[in-house]
């Protein structure tokens, strides 16, 4: 039979464990639920599959390393996407000096084809704010108020960005749709 040590150290550990396990389960559920849409959102902004996967993995890893804070965020998936897109800038600087040894990146790098590729290119060519609004709205399904909070702008401004972005994308989509007919 095991003896309990003197003092509260062991008891403290026993009490902490369920909390840690619960955190892990919460995070795992969140990851399972959000990972695909986060990847799609970041991929729409970058156009590079391998880079997007790495960025999203980094975003989720940072979320996990600060899970007590991020779990209370009103839109944790948006936090991950924003983090991933912010990390992109510093990684771009780093990756200029990297060489893929086995073409690993290139094998994953192709995204979409034909009409899909054109449409994604149109998303990427939107002005930054419009692109962010579109990405958060489409792939994370956030409402206008939450997008506004996430980007630190007003709800009417979000509506204006979204409206302009949709107009641009519609212009891109219409010829594509008519080509398909």
């Amino acid at each position, binding site marked *: 039979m095991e003896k309990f040590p003197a003092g509260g150290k062991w008891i403290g550990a026993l009490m902490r464990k369920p909390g840690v396990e619960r955190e*892990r389960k919460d*995070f*795992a559920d969140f*990851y*399972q639920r959000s*990972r*695909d849409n*986060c*990847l*799609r959102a970041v*991929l*729409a902004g970058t156009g590079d*599959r391998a880079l997007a*996967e*790495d960025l*999203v*993995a*980094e975003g*989720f*890893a*940072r*979320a*996990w*390393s600060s*899970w007590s804070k991020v779990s209370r965020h009103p839109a944790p998936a948006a936090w991950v996407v924003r983090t991933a897109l912010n990390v992109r800038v510093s990684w771009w600087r*780093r990756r200029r*000096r*990297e*060489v*893929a*040894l*086995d*073409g*690993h990146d*290139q094998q994953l790098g192709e*995204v*979409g084809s034909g009409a*899909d590729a054109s*449409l*994604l290119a149109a*998303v990427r060519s939107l002005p930054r704010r419009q692109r962010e609004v*579109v990405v958060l*709205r*489409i*792939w994370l399904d956030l409402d206008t108020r939450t997008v506004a909070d996430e980007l630190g702008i007003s709800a009417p401004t979000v509506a204006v960005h979204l*409206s302009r972005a*949709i107009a641009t*994308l*519609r212009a891109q*989509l*219409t010829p594509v*749709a008519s080509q398909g007919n």
Partner: protein
Amino acid sequence: MNDDEVLNAVKQTLSDVQMDRPVEAIEERGRARRRNRNLFGAVAGGGLAAVAALAVAFSGGQPGAAPVTDQPLAGGGTATTAPAMETVGFTLAKETNGSVKVALDPKKLLDPTALEKALDSAGIPAVIKTGVLCEPEGRELPESDEVFHVKRVEEAGSSRYDLVINTSAMPENSEVHFSVFAVHKGEDFNKFGKYLVAKGAPMNCRTIG
């Protein structure tokens, strides 16, 4: 098309894209990040001396001090250390214009000491690190773009990237600093970070993957 139809059409473009990285890998990366954060916190609390000690520990062997060997310039070689490494995992070749081509085999373990020696024999002072990415604390030397060239090589249905080092463009008292690392933990070394820096320049190294 109304607004919802436009948004839906855009959404459909990536509907088959899925993130298949296991949550365990994400958690491990997050834990490593937390550990690093704690480490940096401790270092900051320890003052400048601790930072200097850390930099020395990370910078590894003294550049240029590697003994000259008769490592063949072309055709790779055999490992002289660490019995677990069956090959050195690289090939060096001198090109007609005097440049040196480095080809790394991502499927084999790289012996950094052997590569350092081989490069030294080819007249290229080098520091090689594996499993970490090292970046200069200060700025990279401006001649870097002239010194490094990357060649894409297609062979047997797969591609790889060879690095060509233009030794004549390397300024005096400079050295190349390479980091070979896996992007994802447990995979082969499949990335190669390269910098041209002043000899002995302090580098920041961190674990990747």
